[in-house]
């Protein structure tokens, strides 16, 4: 029998400041390493290929895209895949129409493209995608960012979507990159943050007159643009609160963004990577206001005080101390940063083994997730240099670069790429990267979108050798998706916690479910969900190696799709 205990709000507020957990004890490693196996287009049915529109003029948007999303558009319990393509723009006229792809999960390891039927084929020079149920009808909607017009697709719930961009009032001309659905004002509705990249001018070209070559411009030459924050009014429309919230006051050259809670005050903050500019840490001060504290917190600049080329970001409590840490990937030789939270709104950069491994790499998509289900967040990095001619300038920096996998050892990160599968020995022009359990086997798979190439679907093999519990959180008072929820569980005598972030990686959106790694423990001794609304649900007698739907205030509902071991 499953039981649920609901606590009062006042109790929850006390709890929110007491997240320290018991001593961490790593479980014994599985007998064989966890690997990621490439699922070929022939096997998956994913035949779509990204077109990057590369020209001799080297227009910058060509090299930046594109993104991808794992999301369950048809609510069948199996995540589907959305892939973003280039399209018409002021510098590019596709010789044949280009389309985004929506691959419906056939539940047998294969996918079928239903983008045209669903009405989500795009038609803009697409960048990224963010899935979220903005209207709270139980169906995930889709926001597609572009160089040019962004698109909000409302999921009708019948396998089709409607373009409601204008009606919703979230038109944002210019160049948008990453988008994050999150509930910044805790009203139970999903608001939308949209990263703005530069004020691009296609007339600006960069290159070398002596050699007669054009290169992709460094974004430094373009003016920054303010990102946007849209408040969900609850009637299908949004209000642009960029100015009143303070977001507008910090124009940037923004790529990756993640919503998390860096100061444990229960309000979602935003960490935003900027290219050739200091990164932003927007701390949510409540009352609809954000304060940008990147400089004071130590995450804006490199250790040497220089702005870097920030691209992908993510957040997780990698050291299990109850505070969200941050990660940002930069361009080659700038080093990537793993920022450990010092619990006083400052961070120290402690990349450890990640620094030497990434010295010559440029990072885009990246994600903290528990690839081996031992309970702690590991780290996947997808890389590639933006300049396709970089090899003429450096013998060590390549255009196509390897993927990297880092395992959390409890003391830091260990590079396990060499043991993680053949895909890690190949090079890619990787950009977006999304994570999700597409085969519902309880371990997290990866999809990497490559610039000007086919996406790479990587099936996790071996992660589910450890026990796990999958959660599909269904909010009733909190915002859909329950971003900001804190999940605490104990298994095998080990207590763990995870804050459900929103966004993260680059141009990507992820499986909204959470898979809790149990290690070798055969049972979950206790599960507590602190919802963003303040409600706390405590559950016991939970199954393992399956997904469960947990409804806010109601407990476990009927089982969702489950494969079991």
């Amino acid at each position, binding site marked *: 029998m499953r039981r649920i205990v609901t606590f009062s709000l006042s109790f929850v507020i006390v709890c929110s400041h007491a997240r320290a957990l018991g001593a961490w004890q790593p479980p014994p490693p599985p007998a064989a390493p966890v690997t990621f196996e490439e699922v070929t287009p022939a096997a998956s049915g994913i035949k779509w290929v990204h077109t990057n529109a590369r020209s001799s003029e080297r227009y910058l948007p060509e090299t930046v895209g594109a993104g991808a999303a794992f999301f369950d558009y048809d609510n069948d319990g199996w995540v589907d895949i959305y892939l973003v393509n280039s399209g018409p723009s002021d510098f590019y006229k596709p010789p044949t129409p280009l389309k985004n792809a929506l691959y419906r999960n056939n539940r047998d390891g294969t996918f079928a493209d239903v983008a045209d039927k669903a009405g989500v084929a795009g038609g803009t020079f697409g960048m990224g995608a963010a899935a979220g149920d903005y209207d709270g009808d139980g169906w995930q909607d889709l926001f597609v960012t572009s160089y040019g017009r962004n698109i909000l697709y409302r999921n009708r719930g019948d396998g089709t979507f409607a373009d409601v961009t204008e009606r919703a009032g979230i038109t944002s001309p210019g160049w948008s990159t990453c988008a994050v659905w999150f509930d910044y004002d805790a009203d139970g509705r999903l608001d939308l943050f949209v990263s703005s990249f530069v004020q691009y001018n296609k007339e600006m070209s*960069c*290159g070398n007159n002596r050699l007669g070559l054009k290169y992709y411009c460094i974004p430094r030459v373009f*003016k920054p643009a303010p990102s946007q924050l849209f408040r969900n009014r609850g009637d299908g429309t949004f209000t642009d609160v960029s100015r009143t919230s303070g977001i507008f006051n910090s124009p940037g050259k923004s790529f990756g963004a993640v919503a998390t809670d860096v100061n444990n005050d229960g309000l979602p903050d935003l960490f935003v990577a900027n290219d050739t500019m200091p990164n932003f840490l927007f701390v949510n001060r409540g009352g609809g206001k954000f304060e940008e504290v990147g400089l004071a917190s130590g995450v804006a600049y490199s250790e040497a005080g220089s702005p870097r080329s920030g691209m992908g970001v993510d957040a997780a409590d990698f050291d299990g101390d109850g505070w969200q840490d941050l990660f940002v990937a930069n361009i080659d030789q700038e080093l990537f940063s793993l920022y450990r939270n010092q619990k006083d709104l400052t961070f120290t950069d402690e990349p450890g083994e990640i620094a030497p491994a990434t010295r010559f790499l440029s990072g885009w998509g990246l994600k903290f997730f528990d690839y081996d289900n031992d309970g702690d967040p590991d780290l996947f990095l997808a890389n590639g240099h933006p300049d396709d001619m*970089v090899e003429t300038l450096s*013998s060590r920096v390549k255009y196509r670069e390897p993927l990297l996998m880092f395992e959390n050892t409890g003391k830091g990160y260990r590079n396990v790429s060499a043991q993680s599968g053949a895909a890690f020995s190949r090079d890619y022009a990787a950009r977006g990267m999304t994570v999700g359990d597409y085969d519902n086997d309880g371990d997290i798979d990866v999809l990497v979108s490559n610039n000007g190439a086919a996406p790479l679907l990587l099936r996790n093999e071996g992660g589910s050798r450890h026990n796990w519990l999958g959660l599909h959180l269904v909010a009733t008072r909190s915002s859909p998706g329950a971003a900001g929820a804190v999940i605490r569980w104990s298994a095998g005598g080990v207590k763990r916690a995870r804050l459900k972030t929103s966004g993260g990686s680059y141009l990507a959106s992820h499986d909204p479910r959470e898979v809790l790694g149990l290690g070798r423990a055969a049972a979950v001794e206790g599960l507590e969900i602190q919802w963003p609304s303040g409600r706390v649900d405590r559950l016991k007698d939970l199954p393992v190696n399956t997904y469960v739907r947990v409804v806010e205030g109601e407990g476990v509902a009927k089982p969702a799709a489950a494969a079991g071991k």
Partner: protein
Amino acid sequence: MFAYVVLGLLLALWQAQSPDAVRQSEADFARGVESQQRGDLEGARAAYEAALRAVPRRFDALSNLGVVYARMGNYAQAIKHYEQALAVEPQQHAVRLNLGLAYYKTEELGAAVRELSKVLVAAPDNQQARLLLGLSYFQLDKLPEAIAELEAVYRARPEDLAAAYALGTAYIGAGRTDEAGALIDKLFRGLDSAEAHLIMGSLHLALKELPKAIEELTAAKALNPRLPTLHSQLGSAHLFSGNREEAVKEFQAELEINPRDFNANARLGWVLREDGRLDEAAALLKRALELKPDDTAALYQLAQLAQARGQTAEAVELLERAVARQPEFTPAHVLLARLYYKLKRNADAERTRAVIERLNAEQQKRQPTPETRRSEERPRR
């Protein structure tokens, strides 16, 4: 008044040498010249000093003794004797040129500029003095002044590869890579000398064409591994390519040949600091700062070193010096602001933050527009 008259008479009597003394001095001077021509510097020095003991204000002996000391590498003594010679005959511009050269050699560059400028007032066509003046300005990082002088030399002596080399190097230092490229392509491309490869490598390094820079500098090294700045530049090319191991080797090689190379000291110190070898880094960075006491990059590196050692107050002091000398040095302001925040000096931190934001905005305004674009931008970050 009477006292002054007496003093004047006494001086006149003292200056009037006896004939024997003059004869002895002449003989010693002749012996000095002969020794000098034979290459016997020690013998020449002894003979000239003997000549001067007999007649202390002999211009020719003072001047020649200065030259001998300079040949012996004793520039302090050379300067002393040149100055004594010029006190006797201030219009001897050849000696003043030697004095300027001695100051240049001892890196007393302000004094070198002063003396060489005087030479050029009297002899504007003296291209040797102008070349040396240009080089002095270059060493002082006064690149517009250096380029003005070196361009004048190049115009007067277009066949002079040394002048062209210096001008090309100054263009590179000033970031005028188009002009450097044109000059260097014209005069040096295809020449198989160490100097030609070095300047080609320097140009590629300035353009961040690192593989080509390494190729040229390695070719220079094969021809003459003792060429000053060669290892330092090759080290920099390796460093910017990310090959820190090779960079360290090259910087160390430069310092064996040329311990006063600023870049080798500063950059090796930087690498060793980043590698956590703080004591070794400190010695190098302090030497770099001795070589260029006003160099803000050295101050900034030393500040980071102090920060790594937990010496926050020292780091703040070094950074405050750096930004006082170079108010537009944004990374130093950033580190300073962070330390102010850490020290809870919030007013200072906020003031510094405002400076950073202003500098960032100014830097953005300086970016080229499509109209001003000359397409020199390289894609590297």
